[in-house]
């Protein structure tokens, strides 16, 4: 890793958090793979099959796994590799190649932007917003939060508590009010208060409920109409412990909103953080943030390289970091 001297301390802190948060996944992937590498003396079909199983068990999904293994096979051929142990680096590259975060992924931080946060129930939308609000505030941004989850009992109170902690303002109405109306108020407040980033919390909705998805469309229309020149960012929050249904979620949310990025939460709680790979491979939507712990800084920007490094780093290296 190339690290600038001045930032070294902070960077290391981040990486350590990442490594710690991914401990479970790392242990499951890395130990599985290590045992394959050491158990096999040559690279054959059986070796690839074992590898496939390990990756599927980490929730990488059947398709992403197949792509990675195919990719690996080609690389092995190209480089004329004979020893399983030599595959490790190539495998890391293959996985990393499935993921791509575009250069302008965080452009919204530099613009006047409206960030819509959507997702199914219980994935951690409100908590993610609380953490993001705190982070942007610390970056010196003017942050406003809209409490457009007017459905779940006490969702507004929960968000208010987070905005108090972050020291940012919140626009809220009472429970049961029209979420589009809340967003309308918030957008206008953002314009008049010259807010940099407006974060909109929304009610959790299962992606197969048509009327709730229509509501989302309506909210988006309000933003388009009231604030046409703002920079739009729509983040879908996925629970890291969710399996392949996460793909269905992201896909169907994509049908009602222009998703610009993904937040994957609770990655510290799962041994199966592979869903981050599956999502990017299958849907081409970049993962922008991952949650690897309870702390406000544990919601990190996603870096494919560091992610793969963290997954494969041996425990000794993790302690060192």
């Amino acid at each position, binding site marked *: 890793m190339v690290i600038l001297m001045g930032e070294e301390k902070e960077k290391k802190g981040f990486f350590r958090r990442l490594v710690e948060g991914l401990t*479970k996944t790392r242990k499951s992937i890395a130990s599985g793979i290590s045992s394959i590498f050491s158990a096999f003396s040559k690279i054959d079909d059986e070796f690839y099959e074992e590898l496939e*199983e390990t990756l*599927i*068990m*980490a*929730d990488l*999904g*059947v*398709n992403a796994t197949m792509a990675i293994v195919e990719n690996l096979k080609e690389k092995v051929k190209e480089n004329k590799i004979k020893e399983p142990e030599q595959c490790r680096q190539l495998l890391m590259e293959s996985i990393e190649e499935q993921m791509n975060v575009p250069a302008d992924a965080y452009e919204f931080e530099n613009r006047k932007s409206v960030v819509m946060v959507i997702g*199914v*129930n*219980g*994935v*951690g939308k409100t908590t993610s917003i*609380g953490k993001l609000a705190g982070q942007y505030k610390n970056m010196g941004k003017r942050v406003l939060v809209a409490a457009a989850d007017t*459905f*779940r*009992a*006490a*969702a*507004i*109170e*929960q968000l*208010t*508590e*987070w905005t108090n902690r972050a020291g940012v303002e919140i626009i809220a109405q009472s*429970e049961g009010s029209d979420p589009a109306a809340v967003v309308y108020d918030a957008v206008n407040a953002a314009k008049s208060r010259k807010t940099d980033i407006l974060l909109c919390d929304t009610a959790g909705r*299962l*992606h*197969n*409920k*048509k*009327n709730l998805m229509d509501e989302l469309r309506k909210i988006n229309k309000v933003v388009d109409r009231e604030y046409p020149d703002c920079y739009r960012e729509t983040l879908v929050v996925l*629970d890291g*412990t*969710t*399996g*392949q*249904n*996460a*793909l*269905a979620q992201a*896909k169907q949310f994509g049908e009602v909103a222009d998703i610009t990025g993904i937040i994957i939460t*609770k990655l*510290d*709680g*799962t*041994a*199966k953080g592979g*869903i981050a790979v599956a999502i990017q491979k*299958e849907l081409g939507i970049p993962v922008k943030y991952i949650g690897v712990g309870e702390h406000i800084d544990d919601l990190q920007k996603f870096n494919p390289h560091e992610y793969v490094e963290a997954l494969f780093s041996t425990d000794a290296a993790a302690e060192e970091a």
Partner: protein
Amino acid sequence: MAFDSLSEKLQNVFRNLRNKGRLTESDVKTAMREVKMALLEADVSFKVVKTFINSVTERAVGQDVLNSLTPSQMVIKIVNEELTKLMGDETTEIVLKPGNEITTIMMCGLQGAGKTTMAAKLAGKFKSKGRKPLLVACDIYRPAAIDQLRINAGKVGVDFFEMGTSHAPVNIVKAALEHAKANNENVVIIDTAGRLHIDEQMMEELITVKEEINIDHTVLTVDSMTGQDAVNVAETFNSKLEITGVILTKLDGDTRGGAALSIKQVTGKPILYIGTGEKLTDVEQFYPDRMASRILGMGDILSLIDKAEQEYDEQKAKELERKIKKSEFDFNDYLDQINSMRNMGGITKILEMLPGMGMGNMKDVDMSSGESALKQAETIINSMTKKERANPDLLNPSRKNRIARGSGVDIADVNRFIKQFNETKRVMKQMSGMMKGGKKRGFRLPFGKM
């Protein structure tokens, strides 16, 4: 496609099998590979899948299968049997202590699994059975979790107990039990904070509660969309807290609930209830065999019949039958039928339970248009006079015009509806003739194309 549901996948596999007269060993292997992939994509744990595939293959690739007349049916049967075996065949519910003795139930699980909502749903369920539940707020970490429980307790109309966020859960529970005794409450449901199964400190908190207080039921709440990790979660909670049962939430999503299979397999503990919607009444008993059928694409006919039976009123059904035969079926009856259908959960829910109507098949069908057609029909009928409702023949152009204005629809809509009604009536009369002698059920859907 990766998003096809498990039942569709399996149906496809078996469709291919059906096309062949006889099965070879390699046929079974191909089929099993498909089954394996389908189960994996449905998030069934890899280990569970492996065992499953092995036992099915072992049974399928055998003389009796290969020589039987319909080998494909045999394979389906074996897959079904093995799957049912995995799910278990007993229905278990939380057993409450008799009389006024207090039953204690502790909810536990990961963050966002749906514990707080499910706690309130259970309280509502027990209340409707004549019990006096008390909801206890022990989630002292998540902001506003206590408020959420308080509000939901109010919605289902049960008592609520909290001590803020500065007391240890074990002390809150102790005080809550005193409160329950003093108020004659007999079911104490404890909502706890979501915690990662790997968080030793947080797990310790619940262990302490269990050590100091007699908890009758420790219920693990699991999001039915959970992936491969479901096994680890269930295993860890089970080994640390000795759970007594599992509740699956968010089953109204399009997940096939592979997690259900895995959890059942690794813990051996029963799945007690399932959460099937956002309303606080959306909690149902779990039927393992039905779940297995559902996964296999046989639909959830049993649940549907159950619901139909709840709605079934013998007297009314007889009267309806007589009316249909005599062609006296009128708008009042139509309205009755709409209402009983709605009570069964609406068109979408009913269709979901039918075989071959998996989410995948219906993805592109806008079910809400069917629902809104029903709603329109209801509005139109409601704008009719009592006389008109009982005598559909009364409707002349001027009456139709009035009805259209009254219900806020176009006259063309009214005409279309009446035409459809007459068509339905005709078909129903025909059908009642055909069904003569057959076993009659109250479950009829008297509408044509909507």
